[in-house]
């Protein structure tokens, strides 16, 4: 009962935030360019331009257009993405969303799997060579220009290995469509589709190979953030009295670290993991552009460059929704991890 109230309250509080995001993006996007330009070429007669404007409601003043957009939004019509061959925005999102989420999930998985142990090792072996190495490694992750890192990875693992005739990682796209010409997306998550619907382990491996570089590249920043957070919260926790107590009871160092310290140190790390999901969305724009990944990031960047208003609005709305949801999930996980926290 209490939990449900908490979730409801958070959802109601999210409404003004989402509305604010919509207002800002819509009026910014309105300044970006003329949306009618995409419907027009040099042969379009003047009268047709007028009727195109009228048909899409572009002859109205901006605030009326905004209200029109909102009403359409609530009816499930997010407009049509002019830069993606005039397909409805929701359809394009449904097509591209799995690609980005799959990438982000794998990046996150990789970051968590590597980041938490690194942070623990770094904290338990403070001021040793391992610790210094980990600190520089994670600082490098925070200050790494993703687009450059992606290009360098591509140069080494794709181009150089390919030149030498060695097995190499593919440099772009989600799967090799020459090897698998018959493949059709079912859910859009390739790793899932290939096993469950296609029963094709070779496709699975191919998709994994395609994912490897972008996911590593995208996950490096998150990995760095998680490692740093884990290290500092671990150090904080190790100074607490209950750790001294646990040690004085004669518990082994293993039990002290993994049972007493780790559980408490995980709480701030979980928050960071949740918030880093937003960072992944930002990083996705850069990574996907370099790796020609057919996901939301590439789509959004191209939409802005082509003044594709509906796509810009749709993308930011989607990302804002993801943000709000992930924040809510973080708060819920927080509660289960730390029973002292009450929802209120």
């Amino acid at each position, binding site marked *: 009962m209490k939990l449900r109230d908490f979730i409801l309250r958070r959802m109601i509080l999210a409404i*003004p*935030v*989402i509305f*604010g*995001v919509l207002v*800002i*993006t819509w009026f*910014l*996007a309105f*300044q*970006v*360019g003329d949306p009618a330009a995409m419907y027009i070429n040099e042969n379009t007669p003047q009268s047709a331009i007028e009727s195109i404007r009228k048909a899409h409601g572009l002859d109205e003043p901006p605030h009326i257009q905004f209200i029109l957009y909102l009403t359409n939004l609530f009816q499930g019509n997010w407009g049509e993405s002019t830069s993606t061959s005039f397909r409805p925005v929701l359809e394009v999102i449904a097509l591209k969303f799995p690609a980005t989420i799959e990438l982000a999930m794998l990046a996150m998985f990789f970051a968590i799997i590597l980041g938490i142990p690194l942070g623990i090792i770094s904290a338990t072996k403070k001021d040793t060579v391992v610790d210094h190495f980990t*600190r*520089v490694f994670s*600082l*490098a992750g*925070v*200050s*790494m*220009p*993703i*687009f*450059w*890192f992606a*290009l*360098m990875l*591509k*140069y080494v693992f794709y*181009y150089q290995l390919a030149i030498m005739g060695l097995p190499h990682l593919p440099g772009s796209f989600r799967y090799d469509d020459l090897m698998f010409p018959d493949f059709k997306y079912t859910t859009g998550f390739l790793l899932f589709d290939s096993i469950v619907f296609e029963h094709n382990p070779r496709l699975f491996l191919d998709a994994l190979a395609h994912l490897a570089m972008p996911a590593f590249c995208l996950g490096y920043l998150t990995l760095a953030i998680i490692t740093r957070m884990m290290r500092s919260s671990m150090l904080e926790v190790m100074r607490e009295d209950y750790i001294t107590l646990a040690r004085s009871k004669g518990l082994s160092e293993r039990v002290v670290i993994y049972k007493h310290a780790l559980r408490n140190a995980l709480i701030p790390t979980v928050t960071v993991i949740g918030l880093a999901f*937003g*960072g992944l*969305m*930002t990083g996705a*724009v*850069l990574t996907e*552009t*370099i790796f020609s990944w057919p996901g939301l990031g590439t789509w*959004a*960047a191209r939409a*802005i*460059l082509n*003044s594709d208003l509906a796509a*810009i609005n749709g*993308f*930011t709305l989607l*990302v*804002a929704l993801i*943000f*709000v949801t992930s924040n809510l999930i973080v708060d819920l996980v927080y509660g289960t991890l730390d029973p002292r926290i009450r929802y209120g």
Partner: protein
Amino acid sequence: MSEHYFDDVESYELKGMNHLITWLLHLLAGLVILTIASTILAFQITALIAIQIGFSITLSESFAIGALQLLIAVIVSYILIKLSIAIQSSELWAFSTSLYLNLLLLILLATMGTIGMIFIFLPIITLISLFLPNIREYWFPLFKEDMGPRIKEIRYSLYLVRKSPLVVAGVIIIVSFVVLAFLAPFFTPYGPEQRIWADYNLPPGSPSTDPNMPIHIWGTDDSGGDVFSRIFWAAQVDLRISVTVVAVAVTVGTLIGAISGFYGGKIDELVMRITDVFFAFPGLVLAMAIVMALGERSLDNIAIALMVTWWPGYARLVRGQVLAEREKLYVEAARSIGASDMRILLVHIIPNTIQPIIVSATMDTGGVLLTAAGLSCIGFGPPAGVDEWGLMISIGQFYYSIAPWAVFFPGFAILMTSLAFNLVGDGIRDIMDPKLRRR
């Protein structure tokens, strides 16, 4: 001829007058030269400051302006020396009315220049005069007593900085990048927009096809630009952008956050909802949209977009700090002796919350650099040919298989600069943290 002129007038008084006039005019000429020289100096300094604060003029251009002013000074002083010689030898043209009217005008301008110069140098003169031995004794013991603990803390901080190798490394990298960026006109072999189209995509260390030009230390890009030179020309632009963006964001964010935290109530609610909205965006996408909405893809627009996206972080940070400080006893004490809200906020609260702001501003300088470079890398930056690290990568990525050096070096420069800022920020946090400070 002039001798004859005065020979005709044989009166003693006139000769005395003549001597007086000559002497006065000599004095005048000297004064004029001095004032004009000082005016030019003052103008030069103001211009330098204005140029460094303002945007789009590089340092080399301001040096060119300085050279022009120097030339004018030389010409004017040459004329004045000629004039004084002419007066000495009593030549007729030296006594024309229009000449002196013009000189009068010059004196007027020069006086204005001098006043301007005094305004500029007043702080420096005050500072120097404060340290004169007979003035120093009035304030220094008091100051020493007052500042003693603070100076001790600063000394201790510097000691801690010296002891941590990572911070020292970061500071060295930042300082050397700044110095190299400023000295770019003097040591880079090629100019900022100089291209030798014949040597495109040359590997590092190869000589130019033009026998008169120096070798390309780090190779060339697709248009025959020298990568080494371009990187250091670009350093000026990139460092300036990241520092200005962070400075503006910190100032705006701190003020808004402090006011919101201090007064609370409806203002606080409004500001926090606005920052919530900004936090629900990915910053890069918002910045992209702002750049496009501003109409022109350029570095200045990227800077503006980043300023807009960066302030909410500081507003939140400062608000939290101010909320914690507001209830403390020293604020109560300040209020009880009748300090105004503004005074309490600016003099008492903000200095006590400055530490996390400094840390996050240092680290954000690297972040802004990354984001600005990222924006110009995916096509929201200036047109090709401008020296900017992100843009160099953006153009270089099409040739990354045949000319990887055109991508590697600018990216490495970004990585190094950003890493240095992060190292310093990280180190400062450990040094300034009272929990970790003394142990």
